[in-house]
């Protein structure tokens, strides 16, 4: 089977399952064992196993299989989860991730030696009083005459049902003659003959492989049939070029080991392991209904993967639709066609909804990147013997997909730095009078026209003097220059290439490539990164990303005949005032709002809007940028709306007053005010 076309899907889904496994295990570690969670991750491991086996990645399948066994025991209360088990499972996830990544890069899965982990897992699962789990290998060894492949739960289910309805499972092993030339043709004849007698439920190798002659000389088939063993043998004996046929009855209740060929009847070689092997699939089959029930309670949100280009096209088509709708509306008005106007109103609702959805589709909540960090911080904390608590806020903040893909690495760097350099050792923290557990925060939020992502810690902070002397020592700046720098600027030196203050180089950070890489990556996204730090209080790294193509809530306002959008994030309030409410202080117009004096900006004058008519009302939109506040005077408030920010393009570079433009529902373009620039 050509598996290449499924590669992308396999990689995507594997990563998803790994993520759920990670989340689940972290959850268990924090909150103790929870049946639902264990069930969930068992299912993840199971799916992962199935997928990797289908793709032919046997090592991944092997490792996940062992994990599944351990999880299965935990799920059935036969094994109590402990730290050792959790650590082992986490390590498995890391190895799996490495293997999957390597496979994704087009290399082999053998990058990691999993044999230790496999051994460890099977010792965990065997070291329990429950029936030994890792038995399929033993089964195969113990029963050479029966099926050499392990029966899946499904197979056993089918066999059981067959038995209930008076049919029986028959295992056939066919070995073709050495001289056989057209092996696939022979195998096809065998299959055909068996199909006439009953249903072939399984073949090893698979039917496709058989067709493509991807097998040596022998193959095995599992058949559900009403026919007797003898009939099967007779049917097969009529086919030429077959060396030998072994036919045996498979009893699902005692499957698969004791099943013996009718012709030859050797006694079971090793009764003990065979019994073990038998008990496992049977037990599993019984457990299945219970597991199924648990699954039904757990709904995961479903998703489809779409090429982002298609979304762009969809968005453009949407725009075109809106324009044409507006044209139709105009026709309806010109010719006074009431029916048309009515229909168009309906259509209007639909298109508006459609437009909103199309716009939202491109946006991904930052949790898509954030959710891998709890695990990472946990590992770092363990490795460094520190106690660190990671708090994540604003995961639901949405960013454009393309940006999301890029910000993972920089944030990871910053988090590592905070854990490694920021948070001190527990004892040290105690000596400083801080709680032993260090707090690291990862916060995302909209701020004006930007998304701000902050990595905070309550650790040691960055000593500007240390940075100064280090920079001088490295010859990056002269002593004179260093002295001139104020503390904030001195700290910013860490963003220069080749700067690292780590005394010792550790795995986690401090190869001197950290911060400048972070900066260049963020700047490549036309973002900005800054740091604020206080010695012994902690540091805040602030990444500011522009909202190009992001969707924000905005207030639409009208000034004379022009429409503008003001980002809701910068708006404090809106008020309706009388002309007499405007006072002047030192020749500047101000209003007094709840005891606060707020300077006002008349949009009409500032933006030189052509004056068409006198406004009836005066509305003031009170905005803020940082600490500064101002009231923007407009003629009319249209309302709050979600808008998509579009860049104005290269012809307008240097135009700071607007952070972009947006296309309104009626197809018109409105400019988006950059409040910070406006206030200055």
């Amino acid at each position: 089977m050509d598996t290449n076309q499924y590669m992308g899907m396999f990689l995507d889904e594997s990563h998803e399952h790994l993520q759920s496994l990670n989340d689940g295990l972290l959850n268990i570690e924090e909150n103790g064992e929870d049946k639902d969670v264990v069930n969930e991750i068992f299912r993840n491991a199971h799916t992962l196993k199935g997928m990797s086996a289908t793709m032919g990645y046997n090592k991944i399948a092997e490792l996940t299989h062992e994990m599944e066994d351990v999880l299965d025991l935990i799920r059935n209360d036969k094994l109590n989860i402990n730290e050792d088990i959790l650590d082992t499972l986490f390590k498995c996830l890391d190895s799996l991730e490495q293997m999957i990544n390597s496979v994704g890069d087009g290399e082999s899965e053998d990058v990691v030696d999993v044999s230790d982990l496999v051994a460890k897992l099977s010792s965990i699962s065997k070291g329990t009083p429950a029936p030994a789990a890792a038995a399929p290998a033993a089964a195969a060894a113990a029963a050479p005459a029966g099926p050499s492949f392990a029966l899946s739960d499904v197979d056993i289910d089918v066999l059981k049902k067959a038995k209930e309805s008076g049919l029986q499972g028959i295992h056939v092993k066919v070995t073709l003659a050495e001289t056989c030339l057209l092996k696939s043709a022979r195998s096809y004849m065998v299959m055909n003959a068996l199909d006439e007698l009953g249903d072939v439920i399984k073949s090893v190798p698979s039917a496709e492989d058989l067709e493509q002659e991807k097998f040596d000389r022998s193959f095995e088939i599992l058949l559900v049939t009403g026919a007797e063993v003898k009939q099967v043998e007779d049917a097969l004996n009529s086919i030429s070029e077959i060396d030998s046929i072994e036919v045996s009855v498979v009893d699902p209740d005692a499957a698969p080991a004791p099943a013996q060929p009718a012709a030859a009847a050797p006694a079971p070689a090793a009764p003990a392991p065979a019994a073990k092997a038998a008990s496992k699939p049977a037990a599993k089959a019984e457990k299945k209904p219970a597991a199924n029930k648990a699954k039904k309670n757990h709904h995961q949100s479903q998703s489809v993967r779409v090429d982002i280009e298609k979304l762009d096209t969809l968005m453009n088509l949407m725009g075109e639709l809106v324009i044409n709708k507006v044209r139709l509306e105009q026709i309806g008005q010109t010719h006074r066609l009431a029916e048309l106007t009515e229909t168009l109103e309906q259509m209007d609702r639909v298109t508006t909804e459609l437009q909103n959805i199309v716009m939202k589709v491109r946006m991904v909540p930052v949790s898509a990147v954030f959710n891998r960090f709890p695990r990472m911080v946990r590992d770092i904390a363990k490795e460094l013997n520190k106690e660190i608590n990671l708090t994540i806020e604003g995961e639901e903040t949405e960013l454009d997909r393309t940006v999301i893909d890029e910000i993972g690495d920089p944030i990871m760097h910053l988090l590592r730095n905070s854990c490694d350099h920021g948070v001190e050792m527990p004892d040290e923290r105690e000596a400083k009078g801080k709680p032993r557990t260090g707090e690291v925060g990862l916060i995302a939020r909209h701020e004006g026209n930007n998304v701000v992502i902050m990595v905070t810690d309550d650790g040691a902070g960055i000593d500007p003097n240390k940075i100064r002397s280090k920079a001088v020592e490295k010859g990056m700046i002269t002593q004179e220059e260093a002295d001139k720098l104020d503390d904030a600027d001195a700290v910013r030196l860490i963003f220069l290439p080749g700067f690292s203050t780590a005394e010792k180089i550790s795995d986690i950070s401090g190869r001197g490539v950290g911060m400048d890489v972070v900066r260049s990556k963020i700047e490549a996204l036309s973002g900005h990164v800054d740091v604020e730090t206080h010695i012994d209080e902690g540091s805040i790294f602030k990444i500011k990303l522009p909202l190009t193509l992001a969707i924000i809530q905005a207030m639409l306002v009208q000034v004379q005949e022009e429409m503008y959008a003001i980002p809701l994030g910068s708006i404090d309030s809106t008020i309706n005032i009388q002309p007499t409410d405007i006072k002047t202080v030192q020749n500047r117009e101000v209003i007094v709002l709840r005891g606060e004096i707020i300077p006002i900006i008349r949009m009409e004058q500032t933006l030189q809007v052509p004056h068409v008519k006198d406004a009836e009302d005066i509305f003031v939109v009170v905005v803020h940028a940082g600490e500064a506040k101002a009231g923007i005077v407009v003629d009319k408030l249209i309302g709050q709306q979600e808008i998509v920010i579009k860049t104005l393009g290269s012809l307008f570079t240097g135009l700071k007053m607007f952070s972009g433009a947006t296309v309104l529902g009626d197809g018109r373009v409105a400019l988006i005010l950059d409040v910070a620039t406006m206030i200055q």
Partner: protein
Amino acid sequence: MANEENKDTAMDEGIQVVAFKLHDEEYGVSILNVQEIHNLTDITRVPFSADFIKGVINLRGSVLPVIDLKQRLGLAESEYTDSTRIITVNVDDLLVGMLVDAVTEVLTINSKPIDTKKAINEKDIKYISGIGNIDGRLIIMLNLREILGLPKEAK
């Protein structure tokens, strides 16, 4: 000086040109630069932008700057009419709309640069790459790169 545009407007074989009117004069741009032609729609004024930029329009959901060609060429302003069009041109992947009084036709002409200095005033000469002559009908070929203020060096 205006020869760089001639690379696009291969002289010998004749080129296809979208001809349009500004007042009574006929102008042309290479059809290879033209993406589409629109009817006039609402143009949103962009304060503080360059004089010759009329504003932005919605082109199927994306925002397209529109320049006032007459303003750029130093011609007198005039009212919009039913025949006013926006020609969307693509220059080095920069999409820009140009306001014109009317689009006349698509022509094939031999671009023969004639002594432009006598015909056109000195200030605006850089915006013109040549003048095509079809039986006495003059088509003024525009140098879009200059008009949009793009860096000089061609590919």
